[in-house]
């Protein structure tokens, strides 16, 4: 019998500073029996400290390494930030449902991210770009608090050069070097986006951004079932058993972690 509580060991091969509070951890997947689909998440163990759920930010097509972009917020992430390259962590998973990419085909896909919320969306973006011809267009609209808080600063210029992608950024507060848009991420939705009636939106960010992002998308005419929201709940076991991630009728770890607005619209304060 398989033991779903048992993580496998993985070595951290690189740690990349994204912002003062966000790092990308690169784990070696060579010789590991592990793969995931965009949208699924894993439980990462810092030995002796505990476990927390993260959605990978690397491409699901990359079988050699697993990247996770993580913000230092709690006990596990703080301990993780103290680990040097070469340390061993544990991985369980993948858990949850994948994005139904087949339903995204022949449509425009809007990726709406806020802050570290771009981390799981990067995995989706890279998965979409792998088969970019299948989608009409892939848009990224991303907002961070300040230019310093933007993640993937090194990759974004390259992504912008990809003809299938249309990428726009904003910051809440600019600085003397910032030439781009200033304002919360929803200001990027004020501009024409395309065929919003058929467009798919995938949203991840802090709860307040998820809430107002959803409101804006609905105002723009997006269909409730085309708004995919990455829910942040206490996904403790990942197996749909422990009860912690209950959100309305869903166990977010099993039924999510991505749920559509149509699924969660009747839940009291779904983003809390």
């Amino acid at each position, binding site marked *: 019998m398989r033991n779903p509580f*048992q993580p496998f060991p993985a070595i951290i091969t690189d740690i990349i500073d994204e912002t003062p509070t966000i790092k990308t951890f690169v784990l070696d997947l060579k010789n590991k029996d592990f793969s995931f689909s965009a949208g699924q998440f894993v439980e990462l163990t810092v*030995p*002796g400290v505990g476990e927390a759920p993260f959605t990978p930010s690397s491409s699901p097509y990359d079988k050699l390494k697993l990247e996770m972009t993580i913000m230092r917020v709690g006990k596990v992430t703080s301990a993780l930030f103290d680990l040097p390259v070469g340390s*061993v962590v544990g991985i369980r998973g993948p858990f949850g449902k994948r994005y139904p990419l087949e339903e995204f085909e022949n449509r425009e896909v809007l990726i709406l991210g806020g802050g570290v919320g771009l981390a799981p969306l990067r995995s989706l973006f890279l998965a979409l770009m792998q088969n970019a011809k299948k989608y009409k267009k892939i848009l990224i609209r991303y907002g961070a608090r300040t230019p310093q808080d933007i993640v993937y600063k090194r990759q974004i210029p390259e992504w912008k050069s990809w003809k299938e992608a249309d990428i726009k950024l904003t910051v809440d507060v600019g600085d003397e070097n910032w030439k781009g848009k200033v304002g919360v991420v929803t200001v990027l939705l004020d501009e024409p986006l395309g065929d919003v009636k058929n467009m798919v939106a995938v949203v991840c960010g802090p709860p307040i951004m998820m809430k107002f992002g959803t409101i804006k998308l609905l105002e723009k005419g997006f269909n409730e079932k085309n708004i995919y929201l990455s829910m942040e709940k206490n996904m403790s*076991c990942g*197996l749909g058993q422990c009860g912690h991630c*209950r959100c309305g009728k869903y166990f977010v770890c099993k039924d999510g972690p991505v749920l559509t607005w149509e699924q969660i619209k009747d839940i009291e304060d779904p983003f809390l």
Partner: protein
Amino acid sequence: MSILFLTKGKLHPWLLRLADNFTIYYPIQLENKTHYKKLDNTFLTVTESDLVDSLQKIRPVESLKGFFFNPKIKVAGLKDTATIDIPFPQSSRIIFGAKNCDLRPLKVHEKMYLENEFVDPFYQSLLEKTIIIAADCPMPEQTCFCNLLELKPYPEENADIIFSIIPNGYILETTSEKGEALLRDFNHLFREAKSEDLILRDENRKKAIALLDNFNPNSWREDLAKAIEDKKDEKFWQEQAKTCVECFGCLMVCPTCFCFLLYDTPIAESEKTKGFERYKVWDACYYSAYARVGGGMNPRAEFWKRFRNRFHCKFMNFFNDYKFNACSGCGRCFSVCMGKIDIRKILAHI
């Protein structure tokens, strides 16, 4: 499946014989309460009438939950770069005398832990290695309300053998191949039950049902799950939770509560060896940090929401998913409640 009869006086020796091959737990009165006790040498001081007295009482203090999901169980670990092998439990055991209100929770746990994409191998292993001889509950008490959950005061499912006491002996009805095999080994002790034996059993059962109907004459509303969903009134839930002292005793004694927490402890055998052991422990949704995420957001920061969650979980979400409630009417929750909160009354007011 068979319905067999065992003569009075043969129960005690039969259990002793079974103990040659199984670890046996049986119900016994200790300080006026029924507890499960592991059969050991002290069983020789227990008389058959002690056993019968204990079996006539309502469910023991302990539910069956701990037999299959110990309050703390080691489930995983890493040592350096190697996984720690945790063996699945293998010993064969018999639990004797469980009541129907402790069988329904097994069905709840099967839905959560076994009939799922991921199977809990520890739970599964313990269940496979256990034979449950469940017993009729002839004398329900004021705290019992299995009838409101559409359960009978005698076993119907989730047992291997159903045991009933009648004046001149015992009826054993097998309901699984495991139960059938167990009795097959003792053919010489049993005879086929006669129709008059079954009439006596039915009379006892009817009396028990009548007692329950007397204690709890009014059913809850038929659309209970929907009514709970619609009950969004904060004041109502705050009023119900008013006398709760937040000891969480109700959740700790609840046989159906399935929540757990995974927590890790470091192992440090030497400075060079690093790793951890992972434990699965009982958890309770009343804890303030239960649903809190690393970033600090908490969907149920207020206690009334956590209090309500217990009703959402047991009588709404679980019912909507599986068409039965995650409650068996055992009455333990309000038996331990210092605030005298009786869920029967709350559900009757919804």
